[in-house]
């Protein structure tokens, strides 16, 4: 069928009129008992806007929000979201462990037990005998209540969360280079970029809607170059103009070699460096551009290529494309850089490329960290719900910050403890050592997601450790270890704010009542607060009450989003902070004059890196260092883990969807054909993968997308847990574990 443009437009207008007359459902207008409730996807950190279709009190569909950044698109997981609400594994009532088994209990019985055990531990051993472990999946209000309750109420800094496993090195990178956390760019930069440097990110599977936007940019501007740095030839590499496969852990050398090429070929912006950049080594910004040049001399492309097992000319090409004058270059990365013992350094080296070329703070030129969880940025990073942080850029170790928070929270001076608490791995080691007696886990699954997880599962099973898990699902590999399981409301069943990778805060409205006896996490936490005699600190009746308090906490910080009133968020399709007044439109690009409200209008230059005292970002001299546990004679292969598009994190949600349970449900070990031949295995056979920590059996998938001497295992399968094998060594700055690399031996099983 073929129609002319005029015919189409005329008939579209007629259809519009007809729809209006006939009451056909539109996004803004419910019909036939349906309503469409504005929300955000529950899965990754892209934060796609969507509408939830509700009929007869049940969610029957979702539709992408055309007015949001995702332009109406959802990935396959997002499209299937309604099914998670009615999964047979929904946790519908409280349970307490009796005689070794979890049995149904009333809310009062369960909460009385939790409060009694927490009180007992605090009285007997002090406040540091209890701990909270949350995640980037909780709503901002929920995480805020937990943070306040534990730090200002119970008076312990034992507050951690999954973002330590996920984003801590990105935070460390931004803070050390720019003085402040969070990306300065936005998704819209994708539409302006001429060159994409995707490093340590399988964007196509982990952030599909961002990948789609890159594809659309490439379609619109065919000269756009995509460089993919990844040991595996992932689906992301389908759009690569240059894919560089390298030995895991050698990317620091490659990134320094790219800088070497940029400097030696004059592809740097001397004026930008002179005005906005300083140089540093270790923790001091006390070096010069000349020192940096001398440092880079050891990173010739040839030397880096030899270390990395790639081609020197590819490194040169990548650098030339990235640095070409007049072109906008955007880098993106995620766990491939972050989950490393040198994760912060790797982040610094990406920032270096932008700073020496001046490709930053311009449309399409920005270093952009992609986030794995939907509210890791908004709830945990920004909200300060880690053991060394206080809300909105404040630090536990900073006396002024503590005093400020004590004033804002209305607690006596000296309430907040000055010593940062343990990071996640350290916290679970304190549980293992018997120092932490009670743990409250909210909305996450450390019994599957921690590195070297077998060790910490044993810790959680200690007789003298009391574990509370609030989750929407049961059983999970964490609820099975719990002494009390509290049924939490899920996604569409509650209201709150998510903040995604680009500083976009969005309100998820409640669409349906909670299932069974489930309650929103913020209500459970307020209940716990009251039972601990701390109700005055968490007097909230609704999430809006919490949000209104949060607006007073962010005011005056560089995050200032006090202009994002609840009503404004209800109307908007997300707003990017800072947005310090109700009429401020939000900020696409931080540090940029004319866009960021904290850069004075009369500032003489186009950017001001105001996070640093001297307003200069730091180019760090970070030497190459390999992984903590490189392969050796005993454990000769590289082991790495990651996502597939069908599943998310530990699979508690996606593995309940009919379509997804058949699709890549079982974690497989991907092997290069040459390795498979050496082992004498083919697709469908089984291999035993053994590290210094544990071994696990996986089904084999032979694929030439893998790199030789590398085995890649999916992370979502609760029955074949990749994290039994991973290493729990951490980055000394960010304390993020090196999930991405360890040495293993692989044998036919």
């Amino acid at each position, binding site marked *: 069928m073929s129609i002319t443009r005029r015919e189409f437009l005329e008939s579209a207008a007629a259809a519009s009129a007809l729809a209006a007359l006939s009451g056909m459902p539109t996004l803004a207008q419910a019909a036939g008992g349906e309503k469409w409730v504005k929300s955000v996807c529950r899965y990754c950190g892209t934060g796609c806007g969507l509408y939830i279709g509700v009929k007869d009190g049940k969610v029957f569909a979702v539709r992408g929000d055309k007015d949001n950044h995702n332009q109406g698109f959802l990935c396959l997981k997002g499209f299937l979201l309604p099914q998670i609400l009615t999964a047979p594994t929904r946790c519908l009532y409280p349970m307490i462990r009796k005689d070794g088994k979890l049995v149904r209990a009333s809310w009062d019985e369960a909460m009385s037990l939790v409060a009694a055990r927490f009180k007992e531990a605090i009285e007997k051993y002090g406040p540091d005998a209890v701990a909270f472990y949350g995640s980037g999946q909780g709503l901002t209000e929920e995480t805020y209540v937990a943070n306040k309750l534990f730090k200002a109420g119970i008076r312990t800094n034992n507050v951690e969360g999954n973002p330590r496993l996920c984003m801590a090195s990105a935070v460390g990178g931004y803070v050390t280079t720019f003085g402040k956390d969070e990306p300065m760019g936005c998704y819209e930069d994708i539409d302006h970029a001429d060159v994409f440097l995707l490093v340590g990110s399988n964007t196509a599977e982990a952030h599909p809607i961002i990948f789609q936007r890159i594809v659309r940019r490439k379609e619109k501007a065919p000269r756009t170059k995509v460089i993919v740095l990844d040991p595996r030839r992932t689906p992301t590499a389908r759009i690569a103009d240059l894919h560089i496969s390298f030995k895991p852990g050698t990317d620091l050398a490659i990134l320094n070699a790219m800088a070497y090429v940029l400097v030696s070929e004059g592809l740097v912006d001397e004026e930008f460096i002179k005005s906005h950049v300083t140089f540093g080594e270790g923790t001091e910004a006390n070096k010069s551009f000349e020192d940096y040049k001398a440092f880079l001399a050891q990173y010739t492309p040839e030397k880096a290529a030899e270390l990395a097992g790639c081609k020197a000319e590819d490194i040169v090409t990548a650098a030339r494309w990235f640095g070409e004058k007049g072109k906008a270059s955007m880098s993106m990365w995620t766990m491939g850089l972050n989950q490393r013992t040198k994760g912060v350094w790797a982040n610094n080296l990406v920032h270096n490329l932008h700073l020496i070329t001046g490709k930053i703070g311009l449309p399409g030129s920005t270093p952009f960290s992609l986030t794995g969880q939907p509210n890791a940025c908004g709830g945990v990073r920004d909200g300060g719900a880690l053991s060394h942080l206080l809300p909105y850029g404040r630090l536990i170790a900073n006396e002024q910050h503590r005093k400020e928070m004590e004033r804002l929270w209305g607690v006596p001076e000296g309430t907040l403890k000055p010593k940062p608490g343990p990071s996640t791995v350290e916290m679970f080691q304190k549980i293992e050592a018997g120092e932490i007696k009670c743990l409250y886990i909210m909305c996450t699954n450390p019994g599957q997601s921690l590195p070297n997880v077998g060790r910490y599962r044993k810790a959680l099973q200690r007789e003298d450790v009391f574990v509370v898990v609030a989750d929407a699902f049961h059983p999970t590999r964490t609820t099975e270890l719990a002494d009390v399981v509290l049924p939490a409301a899920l996604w569409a069943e509650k209201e709150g704010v998510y903040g995604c990778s680009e500083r976009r805060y969005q309100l998820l409205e409640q669409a349906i009542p909670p299932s069974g006896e489930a309650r929103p996490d913020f209500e459970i936490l307020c209940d716990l607060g009251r039972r601990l005699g701390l109700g005055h600190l968490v007097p909230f009746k609704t999430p809006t009450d919490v949000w209104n308090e949060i607006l007073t906490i962010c005011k005056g910080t560089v995050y200032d989003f006090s202009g994002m009133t609840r009503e404004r968020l209800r109307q908007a399709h997300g707003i990017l902070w800072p947005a310090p007044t109700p009429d401020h439109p939000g900020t696409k690009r931080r540090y940029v004059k004319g866009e960021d409200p904290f850069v004075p209008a009369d500032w003489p230059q186009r950017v001001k890196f105001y996070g640093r005292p001297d307003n200069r970002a730091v180019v760090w001299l970070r030497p190459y260092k390999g992984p903590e546990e490189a392969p050796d004679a005993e454990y000769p292969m590289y082991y790495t883990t990651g996502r597939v598009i069908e599943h998310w994190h530990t699979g508690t949600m996606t593995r309940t969807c009919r379509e997804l349970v*058949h699709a890549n449900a079982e974690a497989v070990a991907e092997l290069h054909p040459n390795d498979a031949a050496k082992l004498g295995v083919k697709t469908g056979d089984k291999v035993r993968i053994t590290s210094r920590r544990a071994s696990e059996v996986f089904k084999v998938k032979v694929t030439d997308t893998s790199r030789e001497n590398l085995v890649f295992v999916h992370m979502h399968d609760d029955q074949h847990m990749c994290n039994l094998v991973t290493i729990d060594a951490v980055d000394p700055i960010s304390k993020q574990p090196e999930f991405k690399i360890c040495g293993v031996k692989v044998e036919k099983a």
Partner: protein
Amino acid sequence: MKTKAFLAVALLPLLLAAAPPKKAKPAHPEVDAEEACDVCHREVTPEIVDAWYASRHGLMNVKCFVCHGAIGPDFMRRAPVSRCVGCHNDKVQSLANPFFKGKDCFSCHSGHELNPHKMGGGQ
């Protein structure tokens, strides 16, 4: 079991082709493998997998089950437009245009290439 399932999958196109339209609902046989659809279909219907892989859906990893549903009784040989609304709601709404009477998305976007509109950004 796996062999039986594979044979059933292999015969599926013939079964579907032979099935009279609008009578018995074509169902994808249950398979005991927890694998991606294209693992089997690359062998049994390679032309379909190739067409999908080369399409925009293939590039974006919009996989078979997004349109066709789960295997077993939920399988849909011809995707209903309700499977399109997740991403293409505005286009689905435009089907109310009398010009498209009796048509659905696949009347124009045929096969597994599903070529996008040239006009309007190619959603």
